[in-house]
């Protein structure tokens, strides 16, 4: 075991740092998805042109074909440099793209992956429904086969970036009378197709980022099914372990910057003299370090075996809850200043309100605990 990086990796780290230092936009990324879309697309294109998009994606589809360790180094330097969040490109880069790489046909990959990397195509996720949240297998949105097309009816909700997206990873029921995990398919849905209505939803932070999506006889070619009809659950799950393991590195590095800033602030305003606050800060400093160690362990596991270890779900849960505790501490240190918050402010209060998502989106903390108990500890399945 060792924590050192090779000479080549260290050179790569320097290149990342130098480029970021010279190219990070001076402009602040707007909060609302609709206002930020031009910014997001432009920044992604800039990343692509300089060779920083898809560092460990296959070269055939516009990636660089480098190692996952180099991808991690890039993300570490990205967060350290306070580079802007990739925003609307998040789903394509972190979820849709990796799912296509693992499951899609050559034709699908060749068409979509380069567009994702260049920021030309924005993706959104269509998993949750009003009646299928934690119980995702309760999906009711239906796709009826009509010739070489699917005719889609139903609705999805909590779809981030739906109103600015071009494509959607849509999981829906394609077999009549099928139940639960069977009879689902993972489909590339054209968000500009006739019959789609999008109703953006404002969050309690004031930000309008996610939306409800309605499908009314939307026609999508059968060719857009990924991984075969009826295999939707398998395809959807194939990238969940990825998301749970390495999809959160930028967040983690950001947390290590944040805890240092919080300690400085607490020292400056004297609140560090409160033993309870000092103890929490010390605790979180240790936990942030441990989170990085846990991520390194997980990456090492990927390098060694090609797969993230079963502890990836622990990383996911721990990152989310630690992030929320950091956000709570930031607000605590602000004191009554939080009462001055107004919709549109981009500050610690906004992050605190927005951060409630991290233990809800992509599987609630409670579902994550079920998974840890059942898959890691072998406890009986409750559902």
């Amino acid at each position, binding site marked *: 075991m060792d924590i050192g990086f090779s000479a080549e990796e260290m050179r790569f780290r320097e290149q990342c740092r130098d480029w970021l230092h010279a190219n990070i936009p001076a402009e602040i990324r707007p909060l609302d998805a609709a206002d930020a879309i031009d910014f997001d697309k432009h920044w992604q294109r800039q990343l692509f042109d300089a060779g920083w998009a898809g560092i460990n994606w296959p070269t055939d589809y516009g990636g660089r074909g480098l190692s996952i360790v180099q991808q991690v180094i890039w993300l570490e330097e990205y967060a350290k440099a306070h580079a802007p969040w990739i925003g609307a490109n998040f789903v394509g880069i972190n979820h849709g793209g990796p799912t296509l790489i693992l499951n899609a046909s050559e034709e699908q990959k060749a068409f979509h992956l380069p567009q994702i990397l260049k920021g030309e195509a924005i993706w959104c996720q269509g998993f949750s429904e009003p009646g299928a949240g934690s119980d995702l297998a309760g999906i009711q949105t239906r796709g009826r086969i009509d010739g070489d097309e699917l005719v889609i009816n139903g609705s999805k909700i909590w779809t981030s970036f739906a109103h600015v997206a071009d494509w959607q990873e849509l999981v829906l029921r394609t077999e009549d009378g099928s139940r639960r995990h069977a009879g689902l398919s993972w489909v590339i849905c054209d968000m500009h197709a006739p019959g789609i209505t999008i109703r953006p939803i404002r969050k309690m932070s004031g930000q309008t980022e996610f939306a409800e999506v309605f499908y009314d006889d939307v026609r999508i070619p059968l060719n857009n099914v990924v991984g075969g009809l009826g295999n939707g659950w398998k395809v959807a799950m194939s990238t969940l372990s990825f998301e749970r393991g390495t999809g959160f590195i930028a967040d983690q590095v950001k947390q290590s910057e944040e805890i240092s800033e919080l300690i400085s602030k607490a020292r400056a305003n004297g609140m560090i003299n409160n033993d309870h606050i000092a103890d929490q800060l010390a605790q979180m400093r*240790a936990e942030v370090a441990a989170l990085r160690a*846990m991520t390194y362990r997980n990456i090492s596991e990927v390098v060694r075996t090609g797969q993230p270890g079963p*502890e990836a779900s622990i990383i996911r849960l721990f990152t989310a809850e630690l992030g929320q505790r950091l956000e709570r501490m930031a607000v605590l240190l602000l004191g009554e200043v939080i009462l001055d918050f107004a919709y549109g402010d981009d500050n610690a209060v906004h992050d605190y309100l927005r951060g409630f998502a991290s233990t809800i989106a992509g599987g609630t903390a*409670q579902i994550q605990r079920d998974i840890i108990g059942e898959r890691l500890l072998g406890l*009986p399945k409750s559902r």
Partner: protein
Amino acid sequence: MDLTPDEDQMALQTATNDWCRAHMPLAEARSRPEGLWPQLEMMGWVGMTAPAMDLDHPTEALVFAELGRFLAPVALLSSAVAARWTKFDGKVALALAGTDNIRLFDSHNATHALGLFDANIGSVNIDADCETRRSLDLSTSIAHLQSNPPVETINDPRAGLHLQLLVAAFSVGCADAARDMAADYATLRQQYDRPIGWFQSLKHICSDMAVRAAVARSQLYYAACALQAGESDAAFHVTAAKRLADQAALDNGRANIQVHGGIGMTDEASPHLCLKRAHLLQFLAPAESRILLADSP
């Protein structure tokens, strides 16, 4: 960068675990036989940290976490640091310096004791007529040195970090043991015609135990590597590892008792052994918040 054990390390881990399971079961930690220590010496776990053995800290941490999982004698900690940093070999008792006395653990048949004295590792002679009795941690005897014996100190901060790292490894093992005991019981014990681990209220207690153990173990590995490489922030990482490992051992120790219900409160069941061990370990080379809050760790 690689934070997973390699094949040799995994083999050593497995061998340690197998031996402990067969010869040093956790349940017997309530009363360890006198013959155990000579066996530990024979197996090489007492002298393995001697400079001539050239064992790296990550491998040590892995082995000590396995030993800690079976609540191995705490004199292994002091003896390991003594073998690396002093002229003593063989059994060295563990010393815990308080404000007005020194507590000695596992002092049977030992002529010296080692522990932290202020910030440094130091050793003292043990009086032949030192009176011993059972400690809170039933696996070890405790004795109080009332006099102020001369302390021979080692002026190298790495010695103190070495002890802190090994204690953290013991705590990680202790946290693992409590987690596994709880998960096993939650699978076996039936109420309402099903295993209690079926209920989310119990399942989630166990999941949180798994999270704490994984967090602590990850930081232990990182700290061991940082100490091995002589990194400038090694003290920070070892301190963080000790804090998280202590917490995991204590919190898992308590949670394990809750999962066991009534039987968990008894002397005959094993959960209290883990909790009591965790309480002993928390006082050994404790993690200082000052180091965790420093400007540039």
